């Protein structure tokens, strides 16, 4: 097991809401990442992110680990929720807000 996969596993387990993206939420470097950020902002919960353009090892390893070849990737409570198409659709039908709010609440409770 490579060190990069260990890093990925740690990131996923330590962050209930985690977005792997190109660029940053303030400055997305890809239209698909930008759309997901916009949906996430609309959910009103804090989320962690990893800029894969700054992390070539993760960019190379995560697609294999996740069985998901492209970015962005949203992970919630240790599970891959999807990429841009799924996230935007979930946002439009309200499922994303429910999922993210619940994950955010869990975190707030465990921090108390």
């Amino acid at each position, binding site marked *: 097991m490579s060190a990069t996969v260990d890093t990925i596993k740690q990131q996923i387990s330590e962050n209930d809401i985690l977005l792997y993206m190109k660029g940053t939420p303030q400055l*997305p470097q*890809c*239209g698909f990442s*930008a759309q997901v950020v916009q949906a996430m902002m609309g959910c009103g919960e804090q989320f962690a992110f990893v800029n894969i353009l700054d992390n070539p090892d993760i960019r190379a390893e995560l697609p294999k680990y996740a*069985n998901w*070849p492209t970015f962005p990737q949203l992970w919630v409570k240790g599970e891959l*929720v999807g990429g841009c*198409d*799924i996230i935007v659709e979930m946002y*439009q039908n309200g499922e994303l807000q429910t999922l993210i709010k619940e994950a955010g609440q869990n975190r707030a409770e465990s921090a108390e």
Partner: protein
Amino acid sequence: MSIQEIIEQKLAELDPSVLKVENESHKHSVPPNSETHFKVTLVSAAFEQFSQVKRHQRIYGMLADELAGPVHALALHLYTPEEWEARGKTRPDSPNCLGGGE
């Protein structure tokens, strides 16, 4: 055979009632006539009982060679016949590129 035709041929295996492969490469910072960015709209009964993540993973598996090679972005809109009917037989639009591909 063009990449677009290869994608169409491979995905025909799912016996789709709707299969639309759109080359959206012209919307991105790549040379003219590139085959790098695609959008697939596919309606198939084969998706019934599978989550969106599983549906996507199935397509990614079928197109693994293309994704490992020339195809850089693949937007997937995957529905069962009932879902397709319910959403008025339309698929969402893809975003424009912001230039940070590499």
